[in-house]
């Protein structure tokens, strides 16, 4: 054992060294943001809760997008880092995490969110502080002037686009259409989209039933729905609600009388409920791996994902993680760095094609104009493999007139 004298000398020296290093660090906070420092992107996602599987897919795809950029040398020589945070599908939690990402982790931009409420919460925090936010949650609300800001971008589809695409594919003039709608903002948005499209096509509205959001039991709505005798039943809800309502509708023999149509048909819900219940249901989607036969970008995306994830295929929600982060990084590349105003400018001018075809952000509301897939769930006997869930009925090319007009949304442009 060393003599106490020498120990204290060493300790004092090391203490002094430590103190001066610490003081030096504290004295140069600004240097922390120097040019050779990593680019940090915040990624809030619901790792706990009912959409944990979708969230994990999104993280994998987002990390793939980051990896592809880093492999090519990063952006201006700087590496990109993804900071994933669990928002627990809770708007309050998401706001807190976003505050931490901005104040403590000093991120340069935020991408993410799965539910409409969460994205709006994140947006409220980022726009007040001038941080770019690319939302990948489906919603009409974020396009509207009230929630908009020049830092707000919306890469995902919105109910208006998906309902229009699905309606075009399934409704004909003179058909009778009934609606089962979840009674909350997103449900109302989907209903509004359907009604507009059906009016344009010339189909008749025979009835609407609103159900409480999160309802477990739909049996009390079935007798009335059946008595309306529609040709098509449009079910406007999401996630578990969608799985439950379709299952119970099928239990009541609804499919014998009418076709079931949904605005967004979800990959994981179809897996959760099984092929028999979903058979014949038609819905919209932002992405489906089976597109690779028709689209080079899809094939490339699938290949890259499979290589990084042991042969697994990317899901619809996963693809949002890829295109959300991917488009942001492409804009940063074009802007040569992370200067917020330059990146906003680059995003507005960006033309990108990451998963399914050409996309760009419309100037007035920063909505990504993109194609909408319409899928039909295959019956068990028609499935070539465990992943062969859907048939691609259509992949309508993206165009500005798929969206509501800028003036309707309340924008000046």
């Amino acid at each position, binding site marked *: 054992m060393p003599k106490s004298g020498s120990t204290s000398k060493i300790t004092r020296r090391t203490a002094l060294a430590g103190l001066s290093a610490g003081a030096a660090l504290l004295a140069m906070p600004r240097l922390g943001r120097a040019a050779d420092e990593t680019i940090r992107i915040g990624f809030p996602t619901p790792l706990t809760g009912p959409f944990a599987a979708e969230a994990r897919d999104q993280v994998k795809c987002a990390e793939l997008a980051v990896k592809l950029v880093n492999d090519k040398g990063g952006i201006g020589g700087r590496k990109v880092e993804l900071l994933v945070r669990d928002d627990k599908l809770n708007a309050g939690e998401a706001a807190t995490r976003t505050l931490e990402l901005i104040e403590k982790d000093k991120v340069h931009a935020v991408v993410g969110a799965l539910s409409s*409420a969460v994205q709006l*919460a994140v947006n409220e925090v980022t726009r007040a502080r001038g941080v770019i936010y690319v939302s990948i949650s489906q919603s009409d609300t974020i396009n509207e002037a009230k929630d908009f800001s020049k830092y707000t971008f919306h890469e995902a589809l919105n109910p208006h686009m998906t309902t229009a695409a699905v309606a075009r594919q399934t409704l004909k003039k003179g058909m009778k259409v009934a609606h089962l709608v979840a009674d909350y903002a997103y449900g109302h948005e989907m209903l509004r989209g359907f009604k507009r499209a059906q009016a344009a096509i010339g189909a008749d509205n025979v009835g609407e039933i609103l159900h409480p*959001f999160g309802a477990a039991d739909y049996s009390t709505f079935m007798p009335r729905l059946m008595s309306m005798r529609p040709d098509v039943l449009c079910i406007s809800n999401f996630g578990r609600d969608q799985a439950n309502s379709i299952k119970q509708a099928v239990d009541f023999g609804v499919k014998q009388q009418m076709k079931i149509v949904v605005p967004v048909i979800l990959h994981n819900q179809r897996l959760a409920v099984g092929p028999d219940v979903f058979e014949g249901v038609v819905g919209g989607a932002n992405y489906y791996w089976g597109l690779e036969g028709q689209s080079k970008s899809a094939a490339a995306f699938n290949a890259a994902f499979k290589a990084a994830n042991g042969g697994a295929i990317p899901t619809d929600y996963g693809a949002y993680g890829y295109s959300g982060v991917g488009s942001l990084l492409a804009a940063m590349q074009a802007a040569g760095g992370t200067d917020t105003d330059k990146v906003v400018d680059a995003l507005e001018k960006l033309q990108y094609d990451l998963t399914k075809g050409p996309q760009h952000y419309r100037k007035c509301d920063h909505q990504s104009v993109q194609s909408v897939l319409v899928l039909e769930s295959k019956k068990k006997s028609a499935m070539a493999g465990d992943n062969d869930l859907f048939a691609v009925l259509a992949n309508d090319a993206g165009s500005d007139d798929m969206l509501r007009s800028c003036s309707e949304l309340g924008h000046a442009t």
Partner: protein
Amino acid sequence: MTGPSSGEAVAKPSSGGLGWLLEQRVLLSVAVLAVLPWVLPSQALAVNVLIYGVVVMGYNLLFGYTGLLSFGQAAFFGAGAYFTGIAIGRYGVPWFAAVPVAVLLSTCLAAAIGIVSTRTRGIYFSMVTLALAQLVYYVALQASSFTGGENGLRGFTVDRISLFGLQLNFLDPVNKYYVLMAFAALAMWFQSRILNSPFGAVIEAIRENEQRARACGYDVERSKLIVFMLSGAISSLGGCMLALHLSIVPLDILHYQTSGMIVMMVLLGGARSFFGPFVGAASFLILEDVISLWTPHWQIFVGAIFVLFVLFLPKGIWGTLLDALRVGKARP
């Protein structure tokens, strides 16, 4: 009656005078809270400790001191937040007026819920408060033109405030913390006054033995209603703080799971102690944060810890600590 909140008081002579003791616990608590942002890993976490500490403190008045296990405190927490947000965002009321208005309206809500629920006792009371709070949740979900429904309330960001002529950037986390801490100090002072008043003695008497309190001539039903309203008022102030901090009001603030979290915090910290609510809020939030770093399954650990506390440490962290430090003071 209620003892001092800090170990320091043990060393002081007991003849210090009740007024002086009172001053002590609020000041000491504020002193601890003042250093919190520098001690905890992030300022957002520190602000959450403030907010939930105030909410749980209000709940402690009802549960810890009066013995009424309510599972519906989230209704007042949420009401405070929503009323503040609606006042600022929809009616353009300045923040310093929005907060008192929100607390007043939330107290009225507490009166309404209190009238129905205090008609029941014991376990019924717990279940009824849970169900009535869920009713408030569903009403808020439906009234989406006021509350934003499922999307939550937005559009009332307070980015700068003027305080005594000074212009403060409210978005700066340090400024925000100390402004909100002022609110917390106010709430603590108010709670302390209640506990030290004759009314404070009445509610503790009700907890100890309701029949005897009634026999002594106290109007038990009226007292319960009043404490219900006071508890709701204090918790709603926590809600106002949340609205100012996050600039959004999420709908699930009203869900019974939030009520459950409040119950967990009060038990973790120590019901029936003055500073316990803040200790409980801090412990719960830190635990959740730390465990979430290793695993998304933090709930199983939080649940297990809670069960262990119910079984072996019913006085909570702070309560057990105080008991261990208290020397020779007569307890009721």
